[in-house]
């Protein structure tokens, strides 16, 4: 994939992985700012609906569990590619993507539900901060799902061999990162009200 990656590096670290970790560092600041804004504006809404009126913790717990399981599936998918097992890779890549899509489905349901209960982007500060924060997270999950599906197609065509494990590993890094961000969001937005 990359010229530099074919040469030994100064540190022995893989350049793609290093670059991606750096990118994740940048992403952390991005989500950090979004989450901080949510926290700063907690309780500052002038009109309802307020979080306590509307957040469905049991439902979101299920979707959180789904996303956690997807991380587990991701680990198995990577193991499959590293072992050269095409079947295992195909199954678990698809499983990860499907779990990710399920999470997105929950989110779509939640957003629609909130909309019907009168919470939109412009209703109040809670609406603005909540939808923008979880929306950006959902967008990241969407990117991850597309990425996983592309990898799945590659595996299907037999173009994801043991030598390509790095590609899956980096996709996994991304996926786990997005998962961890969700854990933080779930804790701060849903659990601690």
């Amino acid at each position, binding site marked *: 994939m990359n010229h530099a990656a074919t040469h030994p590096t100064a540190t022995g670290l893989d350049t793609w992985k290093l670059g991606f970790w750096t990118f994740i560092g940048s992403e952390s600041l991005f989500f950090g700012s979004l989450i901080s804004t949510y926290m700063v504006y907690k309780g500052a*809404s002038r009109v309802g609906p307020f979080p306590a009126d509307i957040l469905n913790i049991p439902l979101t717990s299920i979707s959180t569990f789904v996303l956690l399981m997807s991380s587990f599936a991701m680990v198995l998918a990577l193991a499959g590619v590293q072992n050269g097992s095409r079947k295992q890779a195909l199954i678990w890549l698809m499983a990860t993507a499907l779990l990710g899509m399920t999470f997105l489905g929950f989110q779509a349901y939640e957003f629609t539900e909130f909309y019907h209960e009168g919470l939109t982007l412009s209703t109040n500060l809670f609406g603005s901060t909540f939808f923008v924060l979880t929306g950006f997270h959902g967008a990241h999950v969407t990117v991850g799902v597309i990425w996983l599906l592309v990898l799945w197609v590659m595996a299907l065509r037999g173009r994801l061999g043991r030598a390509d494990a790095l590609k899956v590993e980096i996709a996994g890094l991304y996926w786990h990162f997005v998962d961890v961000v969700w854990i933080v969001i779930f804790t701060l937005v849903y659990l601690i009200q």
Partner: protein
Amino acid sequence: MATAERMVPFAARLSGRGGLWSWITTVDHKRIGILYGTTALFFLLVGGLEALLIRLQLAVPDNGLIGPELYNQLFTMHGTTMVFLVGMPIAVAFFNYVVPLQIGARDVAFPRLNALSYWIFLFGALFMNVSFLFGAAPNAGWFGYAPLTSEQYSPGLNIDFWVLGLQILGIASILGGVNFIATIINLRAPGMRLMRMPLFTWMAFVTSFIIITALPVLAVALFFLTFDRFWGTNFFVPTAGGDPMLWQHLFWIFGHPEVYILILPAFGIISDVLPSFTRKPLFGYSIMVYSGILIGFIGWGVWAHHMFATGLGPIADAFFAAATMIIAIPTGVKIFNWLATMWGGSLRFNTALLFCIALIAMFTIGGISGVHHASPPANLQQTDTYYVVAHFHYVLVGGLIMGIFAGFYYWFPKVTGRLLDERLGKWHFWLTVIGANLTFFPMHFAGLLGMPRRIFTYSSELNLGSLNMVISIGGFTMAVGTLIFIWNIVRSLRRGEVAGHNPWNAHTLEWATASPPPEYNFGTIPVVESREPMWDRPDEMVAQAQRVPERPVHMPSPSYWPIFTAFGVLLTFALFLTETWWTPLLGLAWTAVGVIRWAFEPVEH
């Protein structure tokens, strides 16, 4: 010296390698560096022209030459242009060209990503300036304080161009930052330990870290403002409980580190240039590295000193004042170490060294006025006046621009194979330094005598007419200097003295290879054993670097996917202007196509 010293004229090299298309698809860090540098120089002229119009308007009191509508666009675009379209990209131009050569790499870690950064930057810069054609350039100042930027108070397209344009530029910077961190960590030549890296590379490294951490915060603030304007969110709407202070905090959490993004590369440049013209190694190398890192770190804890007049309360004021004053200490150490580098040296007064001296002299003045308004009570009188304008111009023109000019004179022979003309250089130097001081020194007085910043006119009763006239004359003097500089470049490209691989007897690795370097940079990657390889073992370094490779060196192939993808990014944000919620998705789809095609592009090995 018997090796392949390439002396082909620069212009011939450009046309000889396929012309325009080869530039559009290039992934060569040197060519991308040239693209960045040329673009930034162009915008230096644009931003300079904006400044001259500002100075024409302010030359006399109660002037009616330029109305406030245009004036407000001019000062906003002057600031935005100089920070985002000149200061940052010109530093990135040097990162691109110089860093891989200094650490003994063949290219950056992700060459196509590097091209993507450039094209996104270029599209963002053009997008921002296209606003002038609509008569709706951004007009709320370069830090666009809420709620003036809201749909209610700025209903036109002006702020739309600003917020979307900055978002595009931010993406380019973050991708560049990631690339340089990976490059500097991983692509160093054998023996090029971290503590052997040239100071410029070190400062590029620190700057890249600041970029990847500070720019996402700006991105979030810009998204909030975008959604406020287009989708009716309430982030900065006071009547809905939104707090305009949130914008200021987010902006300055980005904005103050941004100051160090701008100044640290200049510090790096002069730390590399001084040893060449004093024939002495940099004094206190480790301290210079650590103070740079320290400035980068503390730079994160001082943002609210831009907000003392907002009434943060005594505790916050005291904390941020203390942090700000502390940052003066590592900065002072740097200045003293530069002086100590020159002390006892053998100074050769080339234009590059002259600009270094100007940097030290003028940045010190800027640093000192910075300490003045680090004191919150004094700040209450000085902030939002020309005193602050004087301060940051001493820092940015006296620091950044002088450093950049030093870098141009220093590395121009490496890039083109030819020296810039010294006689024109001296003219350039004296006009710039005299002009800059004539412009910015009187601003201190204008501010303390009661002139607020960002006013399109001032009353003759303020008795500030003569000061402003002097300032305007200074501005035009600087402009003449800049034109001479441009002429010097144009002239020297063709007629400059041929440089050879190390015209300055410099100590760092980039001077081992030919000028200009071949596409693969080094025939064989040199093995580094010290901080000053070109002083300690010059012949060995040159022999390794300029050895003609027996087999062709595999370099990454050109690609048009970077420019394709960059266009998708432009489209995504530009389509917000349609005020239809789904159109940006078209841009996203375009980008996705680009990314996926890119990922599957065959790469030759």
